């Protein structure tokens, strides 16, 4: 027995020693790398054919998108967990599947991808017409046609998938009038005869993929008309139109390979192929492991929260950078928000809600929770808009300046409470409303460290103004069940103050974000994943939210948004705690360079969305090797 143990120990120790003597797995020095071969139309090699190794100078590595193994390649399914290829959203992911247009969050415009030229509304605002590029084709070589666009929509409706369920209230039909011309017919307002919501109808074109009709029919035949089977199909035979496709997946990584026959190399689109031949995403188990890999050069593009990202270039002089060279390092797009539960005693009082919000130390939240990767409320005063210039221009700053607060205003908050008669009448140090002490529990999911840091600051703010706020961190499984159910929020188990997200940047923003924060259509509902978890209802706000999508006069739009900001900052049904980027975007330029940075001269500007979302796909055509 002893001998066996000894031998085993020696073997293991030797293997450890031998392994230690092996060169460290650092990225190959750029100077020794061969120049990237010019893209050709050579047949795609299989994983086995490349002898198990991805050439570093042809592969761009990502992190932060994919946290679990890929389970399918079906563009109709919503849960393929295929983060490198499927994300039908405001800035849709267009690596494998493509949308007619792509959204650019920096200038708020959409640019044609499969489409040929801009889309046009008819004079009566009832339908959109656009053309497809004649050069666009599928991976099997057949052209992308208007019939594909129409059939994709019909399929969404037929199987009532997430896209169909989400848009059928606004889109009446999508039809092909010839091989390349598509007409999107809007559902009309019976009173005005115009589109019920032109914003949502137009956004469909940059948020949802076009799928091949022939392949869709193959899938339907395979599913035998069963919607469940149709949406659960792994679709490994899917036909696509984008520049990359499936190469290799397992529990540790996802690798896409460039399709050298991609139609986008035509002069009508990009005029060349994207530079990296492979897009690889390592599946890390947490942010810490991903950050170490970024620092070590095993990741080129990082879409995860890297705490104190500046340390990598300030302290370690690594070639790591972010979109902006200094704090906040990125462009804030969404507004993580604290919601009040009006069922909790005293939180139906605007004075209490506003006082707590005024007392919160936002600079500490931004420093602790976001390690300064968020603009402060001094830099971007609070409203309902994200910090992008396009949204900031949509409201009259001066008109609401007196209502805005940047935080830490303890004296102001206390004065507000005193004026409302909410004082400490029994001398126990806590304020009472109608004789009852104000005590709240601020809640967010356990393990969401940035949110937890923010909640702690909210709790501390309460104590400073005489309102007892403690914190509680249930698991996400429990948290989401309570937050999305008005019935649960109305019970004693309902959370008093809790955090949820808001919309980011997109073609329907800021309207959609405001709708999700203030519209009464979501108030007091069950299975509420849309928003307005405070159950806020204000007819004036509802009227404006309904009106804005139909407005075309910029002055009227600005006036409407300004009024909504005024309502929000007055009633404070919820309040923004920080600005968060649409996607974190840090790059290590050891191997690849030419990533988007502020003022990099790209026209139109390429947004910091990891080179795969919306117009940021243009980044893949700009990047080049540090040492060719």
């Amino acid at each position, binding site marked *: 027995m002893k001998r066996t143990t000894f031998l085993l120990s020696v073997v293991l120790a030797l293997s450890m020693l031998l392994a230690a003597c092996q060169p460290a797995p650092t990225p190959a020095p750029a100077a020794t790398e061969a120049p990237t071969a010019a893209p050709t139309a050579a047949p795609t090699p299989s994983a086995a054919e490349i002898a198990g190794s991805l050439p570093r100078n042809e592969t761009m590595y990502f992190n932060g998108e994919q946290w679990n193994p890929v389970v399918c390649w079906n563009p109709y399914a919503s849960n393929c967990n295929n983060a490198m290829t499927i994300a039908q959203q405001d800035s849709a992911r267009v690596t494998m599947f493509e949308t007619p247009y792509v959204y650019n969050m920096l200038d708020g415009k959409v640019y044609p991808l499969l489409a040929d030229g801009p889309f046009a509304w008819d004079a009566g605002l009832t339908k959109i017409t656009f053309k497809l590029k004649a050069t666009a084709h599928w991976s099997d070589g057949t052209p992308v046609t208007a019939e594909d666009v129409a059939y994709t929509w019909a399929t969404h409706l037929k199987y009532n998938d997430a896209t169909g369920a989400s848009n059928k209230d606004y889109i009446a039909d999508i039809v092909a009038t010839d091989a390349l011309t598509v007409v999107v017919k809007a559902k009309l307002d019976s009173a005005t005869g115009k589109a019920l919501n032109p914003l949502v109808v137009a956004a469909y074109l940059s948020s949802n993929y076009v799928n091949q009709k022939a392949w869709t029919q193959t899938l339907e035949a395979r599913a035998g008309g069963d919607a469940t089977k149709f949406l659960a199909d792994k679709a490994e035979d899917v036909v696509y139109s984008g520049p990359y496709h499936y190469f290799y997946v397992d*529990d540790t990584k996802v690798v896409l390979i460039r399709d050298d026959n991609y139609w986008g190399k035509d002069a009508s689109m990009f005029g060349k192929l994207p530079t990296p031949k492979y897009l690889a995403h390592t599946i890390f188990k947490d942010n810490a492991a991903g950050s170490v890999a970024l620092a070590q050069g095993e990741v080129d593009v990082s879409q995860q929260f890297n705490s104190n990202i500046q340390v990598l270039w300030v302290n370690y002089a690594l070639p790591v950078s972010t979109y902006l060279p200094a704090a906040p390092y990125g462009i804030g797009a969404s507004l993580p928000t604290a919601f009040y539960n009006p069922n909790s005693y005293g939180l139906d009082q605007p004075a209490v809600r506003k006082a707590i919000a005024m007392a919160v130390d936002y600079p500490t939240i931004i420093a602790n929770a976001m390690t300064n990767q968020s603009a402060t409320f001094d830099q971007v005063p609070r409203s309902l808009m994200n910090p992008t210039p396009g949204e900031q221009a949509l409201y009259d700053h001066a008109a609401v300046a007196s209502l805005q607060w940047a935080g830490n205003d303890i004296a102001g908050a206390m004065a507000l409470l005193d004026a409302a008669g909410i004082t400490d009448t029994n001398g126990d140090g806590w304020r009472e409303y109608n004789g009852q002490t104000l005590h709240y529990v601020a809640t967010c999911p356990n393990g969401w460290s940035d949110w937890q840091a923010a909640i702690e600051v909210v709790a501390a703010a309460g104590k400073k103004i005489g309102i007892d706020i403690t914190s509680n961190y249930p698991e996400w499984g429990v948290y989401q069940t309570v937050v999305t159910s008005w019935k649960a929020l109305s019970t004693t188990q309902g959370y008093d103050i809790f955090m949820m997200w808001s919309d980011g940047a997109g073609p329907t923003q800021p309207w959609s974000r405001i709708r999700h924060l203030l519209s009464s259509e979501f108030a007091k509902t069950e299975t*509420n994943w849309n928003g307005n978890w405070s159950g806020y209802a204000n007819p004036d706000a509802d009227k404006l939210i309904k009106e804005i999508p139909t407005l075309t006069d910029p002055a009227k739009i600005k006036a409407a948004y300004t009024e909504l900001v005024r309502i929000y900052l007055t009633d404070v049904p919820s309040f923004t705690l920080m600005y968060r980027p649409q996607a974190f975007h840090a790059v290590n330029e050891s191997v690849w360079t030419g990533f988007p940075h502020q003022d990099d001269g790209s026209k139109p500007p390429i947004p910091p969305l990891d080179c795969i979302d919306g117009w940021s796909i243009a980044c893949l055509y700009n990047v080049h090797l540090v040492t060719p």
Partner: protein
Amino acid sequence: MKGYREYFLNKLLWFLVTFVCAFILNFILPRLMPGDPVAGIVSHIAQGMTNTTGVQAIYQQYADLFGTNRPIIEQFFIYMRNVFHGDFGFSFSQYPRTVAETLKSAIWWTIGLQFPAIIVGWLIGNVLGALAAYLKKGFDNLLMPISIFLSNFPTFGMAIILLVIFGVGLKWFPTSGGYGFDLIPTFTWKFIWTVITHYQMPFWSIVLIAIGGQAIGMRSMSIYELNADYVKYSRFLGIKDRKIVGYVFRNAMLPQVTGLALSIGTMVGGALVAEIIFSYPGLGTTLLHGILGQDYPLISASSLIITMMVLVSMFLIEILYGVIDPRIKAAQSE
């Protein structure tokens, strides 16, 4: 032989009863967790959806698909029927992947890491513990503090220390993954070598902790046995020391063997800490995500596998005990 058959049948009966109870608990306990798994799935799909009716329709689809809106007794009988046909159903958290596919893709990483680590830690720890008891003095004085230190060291602490020193600082070993970040699995020396290098830190982070605990246990048992009457009597009889030591360690080994069986039985639960710190693939994080996402089928299947492995290994150990130590069989058969 008749006594042994009674002993065997008695054990088998009790293990069957335990299995039935465990099977029922495996089904019920995950479903007693507060929260709604379908709401969690819908949360991913609903982001970006523009209307309430759409979200509710999606919720209903998934509730129907997973059967979470049926009475729990009906769910139990469906589950039981499917399990006896070898079908654990769809994983909620990785739908449309089945539970079988989810487990299959991760379990080999877990067994590959856990089984050798458990065996090596057990062997080294027991040998060191036995030597400390036998040699005493200097060796014991050195080994004991080290063993106490190692056995009480938090697993995550050990993993982070190894990561910082050997991964980030010395760069001897890669910091994350199961194989080279720039490789595709193929049967080549390059690939195999990266598997070995990536294996080292997760492996040693488990083994080092295990060694300490095993050594302390074995040392205590050995000291107890070395002072037993039969040892003194054997010495009076003039039996050789080498022979006596053999008996001593055979007796001292019994509780350690039980511990080994339990460790092997529960190993498919995964080495969660090592998996997280080193981003090593395996069942630990899969199961953690399943629990956090209330993935009932995945939790039930994983815990059923663990239950069965523990029961089978304990059953085998009990049967083996009957052979190793006739006193146990005799006592149990009375």
